[in-house]
């Protein structure tokens, strides 16, 4: 972009009109299903422990305090929405801004719009059906296909990702063309994520949306483990035309297990030389009150718009991009 028109929006007016229409369509979709729209704070006293996320920090100068308070811009509205669920909200959804530092590119802007929703009484399979219904309504897609993480690796990488040893996984990664990373990386999940990004995602969902299900337990994030098979978690990701669109869980309800996962994140942070993050106590307190059995999913709204408009870059769906925000 030449300097003289740097002030111009990065989306066309037509694209902004489509965006507004889809927002209205999404609100209609949830109104019909009696899911309550909510708003939760974007500024929070606590942040996430996830090793691969970095929150923006800012400082609050309270008019009645001489001390500034550190606040974080939310990386997703998950914890606040779960506190509402613990307080008895019933099924809820939110269309909100989320912020992630160090993320910018064709599919990333550090400030983006997330559509996140929770369905009380649903498991992840029922929620996948609802994501499918939403995609069919907004994008007119063919019915979604379910593929397990294990099937995807066997199909595109020719090995079984569950129960694999580090040495064997390094060998496979090297065979598949990533020798440098294979030799220096000792975290199995990083190697699996590399192969998933480079070899599976681009091929997986060209014809129809795909829900990749049964992620390894080590990548459970905030999902319940599968009671029948503790190697896998009740976590899914939805892709369409190679784009990662949504991530969902049959939500973990055990506060002790939740706390342990946060603590493990912090241990992993320490081993990588990253700062540890203060665990969100208000969230853990709410979990002790009791999270109703529910499934939840976060869907990148700007990416949904990329698919709707067949845009090649995310800034074509937003009024202004980080480069000219």
């Amino acid at each position, binding site marked *: 972009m030449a300097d003289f028109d740097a002030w111009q929006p990065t989306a066309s007016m037509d694209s902004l009109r489509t965006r507004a229409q889809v927002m209205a369509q999404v609100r209609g979709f949830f109104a019909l299903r009696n899911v309550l729209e909510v708003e939760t704070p974007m500024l929070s006293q606590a942040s996430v422990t*996830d090793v*691969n996320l970095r929150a923006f920090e800012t400082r609050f100068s309270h008019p009645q305090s001489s001390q500034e308070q550190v606040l974080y811009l939310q990386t997703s509205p998950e914890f606040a929405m779960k506190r509402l669920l613990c307080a008895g909200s019933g099924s809820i959804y939110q269309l909100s801004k989320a912020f992630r530092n*160090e*993320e*910018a*590119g*064709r*599919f*990333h802007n550090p400030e983006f719009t997330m559509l996140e929703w929770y369905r009380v009484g649903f498991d992840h399979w029922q929620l996948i059906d609802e994501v499918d219904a939403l995609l069919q309504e907004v994008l007119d897609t063919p019915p979604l296909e379910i593929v397990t993480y294990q099937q995807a690796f066997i199909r595109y990488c020719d090995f079984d990702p569950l129960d694999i040893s580090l040495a064997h996984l390094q060998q496979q990664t090297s065979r598949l063309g*990533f020798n*440098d*990373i294979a030799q220096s*990386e000792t975290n199995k*999940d*990083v190697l699996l*994520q*590399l192969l*998933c*990004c*480079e070899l599976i995602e681009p091929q997986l969902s060209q014809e129809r949306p795909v829900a990749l299900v049964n992620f390894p337990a080590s*990548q459970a*994030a905030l999902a319940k483990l599968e009671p029948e098979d503790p190697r896998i978690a009740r976590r899914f*990701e939805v892709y369409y035309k190679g784009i*990662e669109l949504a*991530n969902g869980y049959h939500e973990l309800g055990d506060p002790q297990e939740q706390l342990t996962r946060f603590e493990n994140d912090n241990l992993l942070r320490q081993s990588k030389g990253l700062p540890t993050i203060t665990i969100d106590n208000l969230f853990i307190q709410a979990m002790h009150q009791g999270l109703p059995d529910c499934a939840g999913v*976060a869907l*990148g709204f700007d990416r949904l718009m990329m698919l709707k408009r067949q845009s090649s870059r995310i800034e074509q769906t937003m009024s202004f991009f980080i480069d000219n925000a």
Partner: protein
Amino acid sequence: MANYSTNEFKAGLKIMLDGEPCNVLENEYVKPGKGQAFNRVKIRKLISGKVLEKTFRSGDSVEGADVMDTDLSYLYNDGEFYHFMNNETFEQIAADEKAVGENVKWLVENDTCTITLWNGSPIAVTPPNFVELEITETDPGLKGDTAGTGGKPATLATGAVVRVPLFVQTGEVVKVDTRSGEYVSRAQK
């Protein structure tokens, strides 16, 4: 040489890969919502000329390559080496056949070429975008024909073969675009 992290990989950065200096062409950020970030980098190897894609973990770093471009005049070929000179310092540099490669057919005495040096040694020679060369051989064309009918092949003084319009004759000097290898016009002389 300094090390560069993936977030410094801009187009044009010169880095070392598998012992060969490379030019970064593109750098794409890839990150799963839950998981490690990667950079998918498109690279041109400067000696073999091969273009390839390589994935790094975001934050990985690699050694920079001591590569610089310098503009020098082409002097002559002694049968083995191609000699170039800096017109201000009169310092001379000899490039071998491998460094000159296919561009040998565009080397015109006294033309200014860009020589790419790696650790001080020439690894590539880029001719000017336009060179003027005499036609040494072409079929006599039809009188009165103007450009646009496909033309005919013409051999130039350096051995290069380009398509020229039918009206251009042996002995004439023509201007050629070295990037596409296409005839531009008769030389203005």
